[in-house]
């Protein structure tokens, strides 16, 4: 009996048969497709029963940030010198919590670590400048009431410098960009860093590849501490999560981290880079949103109140962090020069003592316009 082609439907169906069971070798790669990625429920990956996830260095640095913040936030003079603070920040030494000492981890060589050397130097100066100002001018004045041009205490626990800046806020909110966001978006998850990493050899422990580890290190800068302990990027990602327009962002970032990591396991660079873009985009939005939010918030507070200085100091730190954001083309939403100009505006004259609500609201609008 000769086979007759019954109709075009059969032809189509038979072609389907051929392509689906068809030529051998290439089909082995089919699980590279977008739907072939196996996603775990949580950020956990293992090989032969051994976890391949490691970000202890990031956890250590986030703890260091907490420890320095606690000193800057003390309600009375902690009696700390500029050298002691710089030692903690630049050298990772001299912490009260001995587990933080001698780890080889430092904050100073990571802040703005993916900026040009020229910008990097100004970033390090921003932080060491804060530490110096605190130790030499603010801490000794904590028994006084802060005033126009005079450092001291505002309210019960807002330690202001001569410009009205609460330095612990400038420090922590600055780290959100300079440490967390820069390391994640411009560093570990960036195409130039992650695509250049080896993804075949497992390290000496036999657990992770360089590429997996890079991704984990990025993850650690966001999720390296429990949410309740974190004062940096994770905290504000979680805060935004409850706000209109940002609902679910925390879960979305977590999911993108998980999916991107799974894509690396599956050697799927396309999905990896898509997820990296989601992470960098959403984390950048947190910084932009908060910079704008706190400027508006400050404008809404009573003039010269402790709450005003506090909110504006948070805004100041978030504005500093804007230069580390990462847009769809891999550029910052605000350049280093634009950020410097905004900070100069806020510090003009006697700084926060001289700002008007209109000035703050205008700046907030300019920033929010990028969203």
């Amino acid at each position, binding site marked *: 009996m000769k086979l007759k082609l019954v109709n075009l439907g059969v032809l189509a*169906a038979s072609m389907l048969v051929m392509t689906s*069971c068809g030529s051998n070798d290439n089909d082995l790669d089919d699980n590279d497709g977008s739907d072939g990625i196996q996603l775990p429920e949580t950020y956990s990956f293992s090989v032969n029963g051994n976890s391949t996830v490691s970000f202890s260095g990031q956890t250590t640095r986030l703890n260091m940030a907490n420890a320095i913040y606690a000193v800057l936030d003390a309600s009375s003079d902690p009696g700390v010198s500029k050298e002691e603070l710089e030692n903690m920040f630049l050298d990772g030494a001299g912490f009260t919590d001995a587990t933080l000492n001698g780890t080889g*981890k430092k904050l100073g060589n990571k802040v703005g670590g993916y900026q*040009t050397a020229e910008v990097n*130097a100004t970033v390090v100066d921003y932080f060491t400048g804060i530490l110096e100002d605190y130790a030499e001018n603010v801490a000794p004045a904590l028994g006084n009431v802060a005033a126009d041009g005079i450092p001291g205490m505002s309210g019960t626990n807002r330690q202001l410098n001569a410009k009205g800046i609460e330095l612990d806020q400038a420090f922590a909110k600055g780290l959100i960009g300079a440490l967390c966001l820069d390391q994640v978006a411009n560093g570990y998850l960036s195409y*130039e860093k992650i*695509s*250049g990493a080896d993804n075949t050899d497992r390290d000496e422990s036999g657990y992770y590849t360089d590429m997996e580890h890079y991704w984990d290190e990025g993850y650690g800068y966001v999720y390296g501490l429990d949410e309740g302990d974190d004062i940096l990027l994770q905290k504000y990602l979680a805060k935004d999560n409850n706000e209109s327009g940002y609902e679910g962002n925390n879960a979305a970032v977590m999911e993108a981290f998980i999916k991107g990591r799974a894509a690396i396991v599956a050697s799927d660079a396309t999905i990896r880079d898509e997820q990296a873009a989601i992470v960098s985009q959403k984390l950048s939005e947190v910084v932009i949103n908060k910079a704008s939010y706190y400027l508006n918030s400050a404008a809404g507070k009573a003039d010269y109140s402790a709450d005003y200085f506090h909110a504006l100091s948070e805004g100041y730190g978030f504005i500093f962090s804007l230069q580390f954001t990462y847009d769809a083309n891999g550029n910052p939403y605000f350049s280093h020069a634009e950020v410097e100009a905004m900070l100069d505006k806020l510090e003009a004259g006697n700084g926060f003592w001289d700002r008007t609500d209109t000035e703050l609201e205008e700046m907030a609008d300019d920033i929010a316009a990028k969203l």
Partner: protein
Amino acid sequence: MIRNYFYLVLITLFCAACEDDDRSNDNSTPILILNGDYEVFIKYGNDYIELGASAEDDTDIGINDKVIIGGDVVDVFKTGTYVVTYDVTDKDNNKAKQVERIVKVIIDRSSVLANLTDNIVLPSYNAFRSALGDFKSVANAYVNDPSEINLTTVKEHWLAAYKLWQHVEMFDIGKAEEINFNQRMNAYRTNTTLIEANIESGNYDLSADNEPSYLSQGFPAMDYLLFGLETGVLGGASDKYRNYLEALVDEMISNTDLCIADWNANRDAFVSDATNTATSSFNKLTNDFIYYYEKGLRANKVGIPAGYFGGFKFPNFVEAYYKQDVSKVLLLEAMTATENFFLGKKYGTEQTGESFKTYLETLDAETELPKEITDNYEAARQQIAKLQDNFVIQIKTNNLEFLRTFDAIQKNVPKFKVHMLQAFKISPDYADADGD
């Protein structure tokens, strides 16, 4: 989809029907038709896409799935001619006439390796060795007659050899890697305490394989002897300082000879190795080149002294710290050496051969990468031109320009490390030392 499944079932039914009826009747041979061209040229390192062959048979509807691909396995990282064969046998055991495809993988990494090895690596080593020999003779003359004029000659030859060294340091491969040649020759943070102790005791082993040993020999140790001692010490009554200078040059010569002998002995094997694994010649040479550019050149010569890595400036870690005013000259020489290597410029000439650049162009005729890289070199050179000869003073008086120099040199790191390696389909063999 439901509709398709329906037809699948239909086809199965047809086939089952065929088999029943025709089992003993089908003596016709199936026919194989090649998909795509009979002769295919693959550029070295590019993917070979197997298009397969189609089979036709008057009764066996599923025969297309039975095509067996055999013959040579195409290795796109090895030039040559491969014959891929296609066979098929229908359900009644009628075998089709075999068809074949000729696949030619053209150009190979060996031609690049040959030019780089024969026209750059070996001549650079030889020129350097010759300069060390000259240095040794003038150093001998100085030991015999420690006059000022002889000392001046020694200093000139030290700089001449140091400049040529910039053309050799990037080849950290084979014997050089094994004996930590670079560390022995040019670990900037020379340890003067160790050097003084060695000189004082006269009892030292420069061949010792440890860091104190590295930090008391090579160009930086010579730098200290020639430019870092109090006036008159080197040429003084005791010859122990001069003896140490001689011991240093002897050690440098003997290590250099080991490396040259190694290159000569292994040249053929090195050049003919056209595989693509982590330990292949081409992969190692490429990775070592990039590693040198990133660490040896960018970080050591500029980044670390500038304080880019961690907020502390280290002007005392510049290259040639005691002489000071030649750090810029050495940096420029290293820039030229790495660019020449990228371009495949034959040592001492303006003539170029097969290189990373030509290989990039072979893989992708439209590539912009070589131009971007040479433009970056040019911009970096212009930035370096703004610097003082003396980097210690530069760092102390205007570190900003020094940081900008780092940024200008950095621009080629991703070009090499990401874009060039990806074009070559080579995995990086080192990760950034992030301290985690």
